């Protein structure tokens, strides 16, 4: 113990007192909690860029209110997410919380959303059950059942009879496995083997060997955003593509953010997802062009578009409430909202608060020298089948 300690205490106290500048009456703070560092940093980067692009395009004023976007890094740790959510609600008087890179992070904030009556807009985490954890959770990303069930339907219609599924062993992966498997078996297909790979160990080689031994028609895969390139490379290294095993999955594995890194190994992979940077619509062309201009060297992926739409949802809700930023009013305005997103027509299901959107079946192709998920079939207005089954 030295005098240094007391000097430090004074300095710390000053920092503590100085930290959050309180927003004035006319401003509406949106607290965006994302993993900006750590293994899921790519998600955070895309989400932040998407939200900031929206602000840049639409200005920070809506319905007479000034929007303040406060981005916080939770490093992917649930207890930090929770603390940041508490801070944002209690100190910054955030009118809405947004972001949440992984399922446990979205769940961590749920009790705060409920208790403080603040909408929690999930723009990333995709386990189906998340929206049930608080009546204040709204989602603009997607759910795994939403993408997996249509994928199974497509496989059935295209002569695929035997499938091995490989998913990452956590909430979303289990969802993907369950909904692909059930839909596929109900339609007369056979799941030869269900493989779950640990989340922390992104080495798929031993699992892919098992796939090779099973000799299926196709392998269905889900890996979290950011893990796709490892999987695809090992898939080709094992020679599974040459053995005639089709690669199908949810769009996470051919993530737009990583497609260039994966390279030609990805060619021919068929996936079902809600967004591709190659989606053919004027809204998307404008979105992609603006995004690439604002973020040199980056291509927007489904995370970016979900954050962009999250901001859009807040703006539209504020317009509808004429600037009333209280939680219940915003939530009521968000329920049933429908608009045209870069990904196509979307709406918020008033009953489940989850997003209703088109699911596209895409194939990785080379257009203009770059790899893209090129959409070739559309399943319109897909509700999350997990919750639809309950109602």
């Amino acid at each position, binding site marked *: 113990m030295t*005098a240094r300690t007391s000097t430090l*205490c004074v300095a710390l106290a000053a920092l503590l007192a100085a930290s959050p500048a309180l927003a004035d009456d006319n401003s509406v703070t949106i607290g965006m909690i994302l993993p900006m560092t750590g293994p899921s940093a790519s998600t955070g980067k895309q989400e932040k860029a998407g939200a900031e692009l929206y602000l840049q395009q639409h200005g920070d004023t809506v319905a007479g209110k000034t929007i303040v976007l406060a981005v916080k890094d939770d490093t992917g740790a649930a207890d930090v997410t929770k603390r940041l959510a508490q801070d944002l609600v209690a100190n910054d008087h955030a009118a809405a919380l947004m972001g949440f890179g992984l399922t446990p992070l979205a769940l961590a904030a749920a009790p705060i959303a409920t208790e403080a009556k603040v909408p929690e807009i999930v723009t990333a985490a995709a*386990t189906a059950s998340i929206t049930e954890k608080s009546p204040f959770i709204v989602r603009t990303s997607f759910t795994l059942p939403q993408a997996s069930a249509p994928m199974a339907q497509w496989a059935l219609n295209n002569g695929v009879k035997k499938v091995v599924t490989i998913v990452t062993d956590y909430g979303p992966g289990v969802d993907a496995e369950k909904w692909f498997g059930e839909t596929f078996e109900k339609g007369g297909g056979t799941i030869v083997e269900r493989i779950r790979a*640990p989340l922390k160990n992104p080495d798929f080689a031993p699992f892919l060997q098992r796939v090779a031994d099973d000799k299926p028609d196709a392998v269905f895969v889900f890996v979290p955003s950011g893990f796709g390139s490892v999987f695809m490379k090992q898939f080709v290294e094992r020679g599974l593509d040459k053995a005639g095993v089709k690669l199908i999955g949810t769009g996470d594995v051919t993530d737009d953010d990583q497609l260039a890194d994966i390279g030609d190994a990805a060619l021919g992979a068929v996936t079902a997802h809600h967004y591709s940077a190659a989606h053919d619509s004027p809204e998307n062309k404008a979105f992609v062009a603006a995004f690439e201009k604002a973020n040199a060297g980056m291509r927007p992926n489904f995370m970016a578009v979900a954050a962009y739409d999250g901001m859009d949802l807040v703006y539209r809700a504020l317009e509808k409430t004429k600037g009333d930023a209280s939680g219940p009013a915003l939530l009521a305005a968000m329920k049933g909202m429908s608009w045209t997103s870069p990904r196509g027509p979307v709406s918020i299901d008033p009953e489940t608060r989850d997003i209703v959107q088109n699911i596209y079946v895409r194939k990785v192709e080379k257009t203009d020298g770059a790899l893209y998920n090129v959409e070739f079939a559309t399943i319109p207005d897909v509700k999350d089948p997990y919750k639809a089954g309950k109602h």
Partner: protein
Amino acid sequence: MSGASSAVARRIEAHLARRRRWRAIEIVFWLAALGTILAFPSRAALINEIVIAGLFALSLDLILGLAGIVSLGQAAFLGVGAYAAAILASKDLGDPTLGLAVGALAAGALGFVTAPLLLRGADLARLMVTLGVSLMLGELANRSAWLTGGADGLNFSMSPVLGLFPIGFTGQRNAALYSFVVLFVLFALARRLRQSPFGLALAAIRENRLRAGALGIATGWRIVAIYTVSAAYAGAAGALLAQTTQIVSLDLFDFHRSADGLLMLIIGGAGYLYGGIIGAAMFIVLRDVISAATPEYWEFWIGLLLVALVLVGRERLRDIVLSRAALVWPKAAGRGAA
């Protein structure tokens, strides 16, 4: 002959008694810490995080600072303590104080069981062993999803402390005070431990284990004992973290938790017990301020600060502060480092 040795014993006893006394500056430190919680209710959640991280860094100081044992796996005990408290709470079993005790005991038991692994081999082997234990436990928690919630984590609600003080979203200051009281009690215990004959024996082991053994100190048992205590401290930190945030997830076992704890301890200085707490406060407040300004690149600035700290040397920084302090408050500065 016996007169001379008893005179030496008396002198040693007097010396120890003197060291046991709380200095004015220490009392000021704890009052200031308490005052901070009371003065900034809106920052209670952040302060709570600091207090818990401080306790975690203190647990590292017990092994690194007192006994010279390096570990990269302290997160194992943080995780075990947190999950024990969380599972108890999710089954609606008892008061937070019970969960705290169970968390600390569970982690302590694990520390006791794994401590013999540390007795063989040198620093590098210890780093690997401790790291390996935390990796194994993380995977175990992942596999036991029926109990731990697996990768989705475990959400639960907490009953009020002693049935009186709610520590949820509406009781953030209570939570910070609860953690603070626990930190203080455990700190006082650790302080007493450091100045006991046991603490002196540890210091001998730290300086030269071979020689300490030759002096008749049972080095193996002492290492097992301090490692167990340290594990229990980390478990208590984990239990507090679980109870005050009411969520646990697998990242509790992550390597970065151990590394951050070590960082905090190094920033604050190992060996005098306050280092971990001061380091935790500096690390977390700086992270909060810098990451609010630049959420992507805050790690760069923390890294830069660390490099600067090591290059300039903490001693020189302290000398600068002390020489300044001596101008305004000669007496306090004169007392020097504990």
